[in-house]
């Protein structure tokens, strides 16, 4: 089963890379893009019987390793 983990900086944390990217997009003429937050994306192949179990394992992995809870939050999607 495949879980997708999206890790992003918390809203309260300044994201200098995202700020630079949005400025570059404005230079390209994409004034409609108001904000960019840069993050990380992980695909986890998980040996799990159910989507709930895969979600639980992916959450544990994110809590313990994939994300740093001081500065990052995450979101998980699992194929059902």
């Amino acid at each position, binding site marked *: 089963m495949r879980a997708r983990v999206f890790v992003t*900086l918390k809203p*309260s*944390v*300044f994201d*200098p*890379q995202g700020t*630079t990217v949005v400025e570059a997009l404005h230079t390209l003429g994409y004034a409609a893009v108001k904000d960019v937050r840069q993050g990380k994306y992980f695909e986890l192949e998980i040996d799990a019987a159910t989507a709930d179990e895969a979600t639980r394992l992916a959450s544990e992995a994110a809590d313990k*390793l*994939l994300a*740093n809870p*001081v*500065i990052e939050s995450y979101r998980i999607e699992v194929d059902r």
Partner: protein
Amino acid sequence: MKFAVVVFPGSNCDHDAHYAAEHVLGQQAELVWHKDTSLRGADVVVLPGGFAHGDYLRTGAIARFSPIMQEVKTFAAAGGPVLGICNGFQVLLEAGLLPGAMLRNRDLRFHCEHVYVRVEHTDTPFTAACEPGRRLRIPIAHGEGNYFADPDVVERLERNRQVIFRYVDATGAVTDAANPNGSVNNIAGLCNERRNVVGLMPHPERACELAVGSADGLVLFESAVKAVAEGAFAAAR
């Protein structure tokens, strides 16, 4: 007394720290591989600068799984003096031995330059030979040294006098212009509540002889020697 300098794959300031302890100060020093499971009776542990495990995932994030880190945690929990320099500081943060996290420098640039830091408190094993308020001119070399912690954590750090080094200008003033990376409250280094674990982004081990432009960093290592000699900070065995 004996220093242990931990060597992770990707450490590149390990020999500088070893040199400072052994050749400049005349102390015993030993390089300890990250897969070792013994600190070999060291009195002081140094986690050096570099790019442990290639900075994969996040700086310092993988190093905390190195077998030696269990020993470092035990040593720290027993009150032993631990110094994390640059990447070693990042490892201490990821390992939970110090609070907070590092972000990319606010200007996204890798900064390699001499800066001034002010010694805020001298009741740690790495500032014991300093007078409070002393300015040190030592180099930084990092891309992710923008210290961040939640406001309540920062407030607690300040209240507990855990901010040990702060970026200042040549006159000793805390200014935004003197802050090379955007760190909250100009924090360049801090300690844990017990004050035996200290981390800082600047590189004191690269400023231990005038031949390299500054010897201001030596006082951190001299402090460790003093603190251990006085028995102020020793790992309970």
